[in-house]
């Protein structure tokens, strides 16, 4: 049984066959997914199917009805982006945006992610001679890890206390990222810096 038939079967346990089919078909149109592609693109069509089903079952009912599909279709991706120059940074920002779309993050969360990537990436380019930014999507949470082998960030405690007036912007960027993140971890010494940030709903 393919994905289309599986979803149809599940929905028909809750709503009539005609409505179930109509919900799915309209959702596919809205999501821009062909019925034959549903196996590969279920994660993309699912929010729209849920929306359509909610008309009949309410938001909670729709979520419950499609429960089995939601937990398995979250697209988990890990991307590794070397960032050494400004064009690299532009690419990393664009890639981050795409990742957020694929993970169905809201526009506000997506903006947070791209801003974090921009701040950390810029610091890497300006002060560490480049590094790598890893983006990972886990169940709607985006994990951004920025690693470099630069000289490290001095005065970290002062930066976070807000007492380090950085003319160069390094401190401002890190402070901003820390405030944007739901989780923030940093390790920095003369051998390099690793910053791990979580952003999500």
């Amino acid at each position, binding site marked *: 049984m393919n994905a289309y038939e599986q979803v149809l079967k599940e929905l028909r346990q809750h709503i009539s066959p005609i409505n179930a089919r109509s919900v799915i078909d309209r959702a596919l149109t809205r999501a821009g997914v062909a019925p034959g592609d549903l196996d590969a693109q279920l994660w993309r069509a699912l929010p729209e199917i849920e929306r359509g089903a909610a008309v009949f079952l309410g938001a909670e009912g729709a979520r419950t009805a499609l429960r089995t599909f939601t937990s398995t279709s979250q697209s988990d991706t890990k991307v590794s982006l070397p960032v050494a120059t400004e064009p690299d940074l532009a690419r990393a920002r664009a890639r981050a945006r795409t990742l957020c779309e694929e993970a169905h993050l809201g526009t*506000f969360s997506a903006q947070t992610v791209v*801003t974090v990537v921009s701040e950390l990436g*810029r610091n890497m380019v300006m002060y560490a001679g480049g590094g790598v930014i890893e983006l990972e999507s886990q169940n709607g949470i985006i994990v951004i890890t920025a690693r470099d082998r630069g000289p490290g960030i001095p005065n970290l405690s002062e930066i976070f206390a807000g007492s380090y007036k950085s003319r160069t912007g390094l401190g401002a960027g890190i402070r*901003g990222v820390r405030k944007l993140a739901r989780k923030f971890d940093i390790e920095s010494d003369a051998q390099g810096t690793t910053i791990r940030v979580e952003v999500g709903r």
Partner: protein
Amino acid sequence: MSANERAGYGRISDRTPVLKLWDVLLVTVRGELMDVEAEVLSAEVLNAVHRWGPRGLVIDLSGAGLVDSHLCRVIADIAQAAALMGTPSALSGLGPEIALALETMGVSFRGVQVTRTAEAAFELFGVVPAPIDDEEAEEAEEDEESSTEPEERVEP
């Protein structure tokens, strides 16, 4: 060929327009600003401020998909330098996502007024459109057909 041209960006000055509209300068920041572009932008804006001595400088960000701490710094520097030359600045066009991100990061634009639209910023600097009264326009048309004397327009 500059590094930017090699990368396909074309001449920077072609992409950072500074427009003089009546007595107000309008700068639209579009897309993402690389460091070299930020320098050129600053230079162009401040040269224009010096040349025209405008009543105000409007920096519109509705075309910027991302505003990070670096761009904030660039803008703050431009605004402060313009102020030293006697021109106040206003920021416009920040969308909800960017506004929230800036607020969360704790960024504030001190000494710079912020409006929702570029038009509102222009109004701040005293540039207001004079609406054409429909009645007057109709009368002007009728009179034009029937007489040779030009109708005198009275501005409210």
